[in-house]
């Protein structure tokens, strides 16, 4: 049974169904959208159940010729990492639909269009993680931009079109860098036994270290833009500020993961040596992102921008973990990707509710919410705690794994990165104090607290955050084999205890 194709087709069916529905009946449109995302989620979980943990091979593999004359296949398959990310995406989708029930109103186009875009995007989100053919990956990687572009530009707020363009140009530029590398790979594969885009085959290519470095950069720049790594991050705050909360969740929670996912799946696998060559630089960039993002977050006045910058900091952690080349770092990073998806979702959704109620996203416009809207305030607080990786929250496990894993090989980087956790306390508690504590500022005396729909939407997110905080094993068991596999392939093994040189 072609699970992955099924997963990709289901949302498309949903979007087609939406297309035929009448524009006017918005309620029905939303219900259908929600239903289809739920179906996809169910299917994904059903698939995940059948996943064999300890098998490091790709699973649920599918392969059909697509453009034979270029040796391009429609090839899908998942390892532990991809599976986890697909799970995350498909769980987040219904949450976003439910949480952003009304955010599609007041857009340039109809509610219907909004959800069609969302569903198309979901298909691509699944495909981009499942693709095992580099060309297919690239196609989806680029095509994904279009729906997001319209989601931001069409339904966002403020300088939405400018932000959308910035996002698109940035990403396209990165994408073209990657295209150049892909072309080079393709040509080389032709020279070395037949044109192909099969990831496994390409990873066997022989190439001079010079070439490898250049091609690596081509890929890495694209991914460093996606998962905003300092200094390629400036599109993210604008995009997040303008996009609707739901879009932001998909953008930061899922799409940006493609960047870090790509670093693992493509940079490390295709260019092991180059990866090692560039590791020092990348680690520094990662550490800078952690600290820089955190400090900038502290300095923000706008709630959405603040969240965006916290994400930049978090992506720094993920990158750090990936390139630490230890099983703890890798598993930590992988788990981090998953957790970040949910803690960012929590922050953005609750933040979004606060903003839509108050009609402003300036932090200082809030105040004393804890007295007026206790539940909403609590949810925001919990989301914040998860974002600053409080023990007991899932994000703690991943963050600590990253730090420990990094420390064993790159102590200095780890130590600097750890300062991020103090800054995290600041960038969360400052908005918490301004928005939730203190006397009620005029203008939000009679904001309404979360309604049932919103509670239902946020509950699973919180549940996941907390449950995984105490019991991350289910995910770790899936990730670990992949982790050890990749690390081993790169010729690394976890450093043995040094006994401090005694």
């Amino acid at each position, binding site marked *: 049974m072609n699970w992955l194709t099924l997963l990709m087709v289901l949302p498309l069916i949903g979007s087609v169904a939406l297309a035929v529905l009448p524009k006017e009946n918005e309620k029905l449109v939303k219900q259908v959208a929600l239903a289809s995302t739920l179906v996809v989620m169910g299917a994904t979980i059903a698939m995940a159940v059948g996943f064999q943990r300890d098998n490091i091979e790709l699973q649920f593999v599918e392969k059909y010729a697509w453009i*034979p004359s270029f040796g391009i296949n429609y090839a899908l398959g998942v390892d532990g990492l991809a599976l986890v990310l697909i799970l995350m995406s498909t769980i987040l989708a219904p949450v976003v639909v439910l949480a952003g029930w009304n955010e599609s109103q007041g857009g*340039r186009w109809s509610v219907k269009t909004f959800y069609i875009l969302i569903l198309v995007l979901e298909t691509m989100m699944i495909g981009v993680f499942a693709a095992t053919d580099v060309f297919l990956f690239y196609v989806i990687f*680029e*095509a994904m931009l279009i729906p997001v572009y319209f989601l931001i530009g069409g339904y966002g707020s403020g300088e939405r079109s400018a932000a*959308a363009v910035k996002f698109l140009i940035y990403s396209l530029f990165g994408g073209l860098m990657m295209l150049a590398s892909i*072309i080079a790979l393709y040509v080389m594969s032709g020279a070395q036994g037949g044109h192909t885009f099969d990831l496994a085959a390409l990873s066997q290519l022989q190439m001079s270290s010079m070439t490898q470095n250049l091609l690596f950069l081509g890929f890495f720049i694209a991914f460093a833009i996606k998962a905003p790594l300092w200094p390629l991050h400036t599109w993210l705050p604008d995009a997040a500020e303008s996009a609707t909360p739901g879009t932001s969740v998909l953008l930061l929670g899922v799409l940006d993961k493609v960047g870090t996912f790509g670093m693992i799946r493509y940079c490390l696998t295709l260019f092991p040596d180059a990866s090692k060559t560039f590791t020092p630089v990348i680690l520094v960039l990662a550490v800078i992102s952690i600290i820089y993002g955190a400090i900038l977050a502290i300095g923000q006045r706008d709630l959405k921008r603040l969240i965006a910058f916290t994400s930049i900091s978090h992506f720094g952690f993920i990158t750090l973990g990936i390139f630490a080349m230890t099983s703890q770092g890798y598993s930590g990073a992988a788990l981090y990707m998953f957790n970040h998806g949910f803690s960012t979702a929590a922050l953005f959704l609750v933040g979004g509710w606060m903003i839509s109620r108050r009609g402003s996203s300036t932090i200082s416009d809030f105040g004393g919410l804890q007295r007026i809207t206790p539940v909403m305030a609590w949810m925001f607080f919990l989301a914040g705690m998860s974002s600053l990786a409080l023990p007991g929250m899932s994000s703690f496990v991943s963050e600590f794994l990253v730090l420990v894993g990094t420390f064993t090989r790159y102590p200095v980087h780890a130590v600097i990165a750890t300062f991020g956790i103090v800054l995290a306390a600041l960038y969360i508690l400052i908005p918490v104090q301004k928005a939730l504590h203190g006397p009620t500022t005029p203008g939000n005396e009679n904001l309404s607290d979360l309604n049932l729909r919103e509670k239902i939407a946020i509950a699973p997110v919180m549940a996941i955050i907390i449950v995984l905080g105490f019991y991350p094993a289910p995910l770790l068991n899936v990730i670990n084999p992949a982790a050890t596999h990749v690390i081993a392939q790169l010729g690394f093994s976890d450093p043995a205890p040094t006994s401090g040189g005694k």
Partner: protein
Amino acid sequence: MTFTAPVLNYTLLSPILILLGGALIGVLVEAFVSKALRSIVQLSLTVGTLVLSLAQVWRIHNETSMSAAMGSVIIDGPAILLQASILIISIISIFLFADTDHFTALAAALPGSEEERHSLETGNQVTEVYPLTLFAISGMMLFPIASDLITLFVALEMLSLPLYLMAGLSRRRRLASQEAALKYFLLGAFSSAFFLFGMAYLYGYSASITYAGIRESVVGGSGNDVLLLIGIAFLSIGLLFKVGAVPFHAWSPDVYQGAPTPITGFMAAATKVAAFGAMLRIYYTVFANAQWSWTPLLSVIAIITMLFGSLVAIAQRDVKRMLAYSSIAHAGFLLAGVIALNKAGLEASIFYLFAYGVATVGAFAVVTLVRDSSGEVTDLNRWKGLGKRSPWVAATFAGFLLAFAGIPLTSGFIGKFSIFSAAYESGAKGVVFAGVLSSAIAAFFYIRVIVLMFFTDATQDGTSVQLPSALTRATLVISIAITIALGVYPAPLLNVISNLSTFIR
């Protein structure tokens, strides 16, 4: 010395002969059919001719590898493909001619003269554009299959002269239109002089006017290289002029803007196919062995062309000029295919030519729809909010723009990928990099237009989208369908191309 009677293979020539016949009939129709029926008759005649010719091409497509007319033309795989592309593109663009509102009622009449007004009122619409088009097409058909210099030159003029005239036929802004014609004509003639001079030197170098003969001397390396090089250089000027490569591009923005939009679309698409077709044949067969001499020059020109086209396009405020510059940039990309000088390059170029041609026709078709009381509106600022007023038209246009930008799942991406990879394979890494870079720049202005259409609010200035006529709609639907189809599942076409595309030498 004795003359032998020429032996002609009419089957292989039939597509062209059909076109010429149709054109001649068209002239007669123009003379004798009543003005009421004229347009409809002309249109159906033209379309019929084209379809017939296409059918003929289909019939001969597998009896290829034969030289007709005593080796002065060659019908081989690429020839078939190119001719087919030209015909298909012509068919979908001819639909746009149907809306006579584009064309002056009486080209001979003075702009704004009594005479003109009268013929407008009486609906005395001359329709010489159709036969002209057919003549041009037949020239285009001949251009890429010519295999000696005479035929090449004649074909060049055959396709150029009608186009010069057609550029001046616009009903609105006639002064500009005539100016376009003048510029196109003067510069065209100028460049063809270079072309001719180059021919002379090639003849001098090889003592032969057939491709085969010239290639032999090139391979043999006998003879004076200076003659050869000057020959190649000047011949190239003629060809590069036709495809609009920098610095021989200057005519294209003005002509594209001045000419009636349907003509512009037809010209931009079909001429490129023909010119590049001829170019590919010449460089791949005749000059292949002198590669060392021309690839560097061509590479430089290609790089300059890509970057120039993309950069200047950013600064345009007129849709047609913007498309003109984008077509310059695309000429640069296509040159990469010529430089590649390998089978992959040939296949890629042919695919690219077809895909790009179709998308171009479609794009200009959209341009014909955006109007106000005084005709077409090409000022980009007045395209604001198009997406709100008529989402489908805007979406279609966006589709073509994305194809131009080479976004995946559009034909443009496959074309770009294949042509760049071919160029890279032949070691032209610099060209590829420039190509990627300029694609990034290009993306910028394509997106700008999309933003204008979708994300900015309309200005109330009477700009409106005319409801597309059935034929225009057909053009739009066909071209967008092809554009998407070739992006999603190009395998079939690519297979056909790779089976057919080998030049007969």
